């Protein structure tokens, strides 16, 4: 048994559970891609050659046109710039959902796991309630009720995304709490808060990071799905899912306008999944 408990994942993808730590180079490359994507997102506005909202060229230029690597859309906006800024919106939205889930679910999980007893019972019943509802469907309903908009989408998805983290992290905390060194510290009279911060949290963090990195891809795809139903980012600000939805009617005429952001969603999801797996393997290998 490895030191890291393997979380049950939502729409899990992976190359397989257990490619071995011997292949650190491949793993590091994949993790590097994950970091690179984040860097691209951070510096998107510097990398973008043009203003993503203003028309800057002829209409409907196909990819590899001079001056516009990915072409232009039906309003003459530079698609490379839109894709980069859209990637930032999608990536950071997904990160936001995952971070909110980790913070809220993690807090709940740590408290429930560390305190046990009736607190654990109460918090986990609450978590189970959310877990038992069909998450993606509830996200759709919440988003439909609040109306379209990126913030509303994030609220809808965050609302259903945290319970998984609460479950996983609680299990991890319970496991750690019964470990001999934690047991010993408790017997030695170490305070509960100190116990949590010194002994339990450091053990939980790797699981949390792996779970989160595996999840980003799922969130990116889910956000794109909500955008397809007409919820999600308002124009003209670019966001990958919304850009696909807004231009889907061009699929048979100027295919590259919906396909480029769609492909970017796929690549992001792939990178997040491969990178997440690689990260887990690396962490597992170090133990």
């Amino acid at each position, binding site marked *: 048994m490895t030191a890291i408990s393997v979380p049950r994942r939502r*729409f899990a993808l*992976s190359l*397989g559970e257990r490619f071995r730590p011997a292949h650190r180079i491949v793993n590091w490359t994949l993790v590097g891609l994950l970091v690179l994507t984040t860097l691209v997102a951070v510096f998107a506005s510097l990398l973008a050659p043009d203003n993503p909202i203003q028309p800057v060229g002829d209409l409907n230029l196909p990819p590899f046109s001079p001056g516009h690597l990915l072409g232009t859309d039906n309003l003459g906006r530079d698609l490379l710039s839109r894709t980069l800024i859209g990637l930032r919106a999608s990536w950071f939205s997904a990160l936001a959902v995952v971070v909110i889930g980790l913070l809220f679910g993690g807090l709940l999980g740590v408290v429930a796991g560390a305190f046990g007893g009736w607190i654990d019972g109460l918090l986990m019943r609450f978590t189970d309630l959310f877990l038992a509802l069909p*998450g993606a469907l509830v996200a759709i309903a919440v988003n439909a009720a609040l109306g379209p908009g990126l913030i509303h989408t994030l609220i809808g998805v965050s609302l259903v995304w945290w319970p998984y983290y609460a479950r996983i992290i609680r299990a991890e905390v319970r496991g750690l709490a019964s470990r001999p060194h934690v047991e010993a510290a408790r017997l030695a009279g170490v305070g509960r808060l100190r116990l949590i911060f010194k002994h339990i949290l450091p053990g939980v963090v790797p699981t949390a990071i792996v779970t989160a990195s595996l999840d980003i891809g799922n969130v990116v795809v889910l956000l794109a799905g909500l955008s397809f*139903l007409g919820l999600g980012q308002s124009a003209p600000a670019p966001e990958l899912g919304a850009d*696909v939805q807004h231009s889907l009617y061009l699929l*048979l005429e100027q295919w590259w306008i919906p396909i480029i952001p769609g492909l970017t969603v796929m690549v992001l999801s*792939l990178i997040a999944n491969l990178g997440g797996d690689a990260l887990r393997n690396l962490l597992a290998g170090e133990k």
Partner: protein
Amino acid sequence: MIRFVLKRTGAAAVLLVVLSALVFVLQQISPGDPARAYVGGNASPAAVAAARQQLGLDQPWPQQYLRYLWNALHGDLGLSLRTHQPVTSDLGQFLPATAELVLFSFVLAIVLALLFALSGALRWPGTGIYRGVLLVGATAPAFLLGLGGIVVFYGDLHWLPEAGRGVDTSSPTGFVLVDSLLHGDLTGFVAGFQHLLLPGLALAVAPAISIGRILRAGLESAYGADYVRTARAKGIREFGVLWRHVVRNSLDAALSMSGLQLGFMFAGVVIVEDVFSWPGIGYYLAQSIPQSDFPAIAGVTLLLGGVYIVVNAVVDVIQAVADPRLTV
């Protein structure tokens, strides 16, 4: 064991009430005006006000909720603002199509998952491409996958149809594949299968990967386990070993993952049915969202949520039967 089943049933009932309350609160905060959707077009404010009264939308909302819950218990989910028919009869009309699509797709997912797991664990030569394609398919948003499939297999190749189920109504079961066989209608069966294939695949890829991955992990660890080695040493044929010792041992994890995946397929089915104009309740939901047809949205959410809750309760019970330790 009976206590466990009862407890699980009670919990499912509570969940349904919570779900209905959630849906109702969402309806209250939604910005759309359902009365306006009901009368449509260039309707005057006076006509809208009359409709609001007729639909009971002018009453205070706790009263509306209690009435909704009371009626729901009697099998009345209100009137769809778009079709003007009772939501329950709409759901009844569209449910079989969704049930057939989801079941078909689920079977497809299991088959794809088994192939993924076996080909991976046993390293069948040349199957890397299959796994790669499946992997990429699963990262694609379902609508892109669906539309891509339509463009290639309908637009370019003319192999498969682009929309619908191929028939207007199907009786007695509502499942085209079953009904056509009952009637001895082979052409109808083939047509039904062709219509199912693309939407079924678009819906199956993501769960196939998730289930396949769990299965494969199970296979790989079981394959190296001592008792399997013993079995192989005893000269039991490869396939027999695989089936008797390995697959069965990895089924438990795969089963619980399957229950979970079914829930995500219900969300996916909304998108896939919309792309393929598939006359099911997902398509019904997708058409209801733009019109703020909340009785319909609530009905679909309750129905799909209910099925999800019940399926997971059943999975729990099955697992408990298989392994009584889980009931504690």
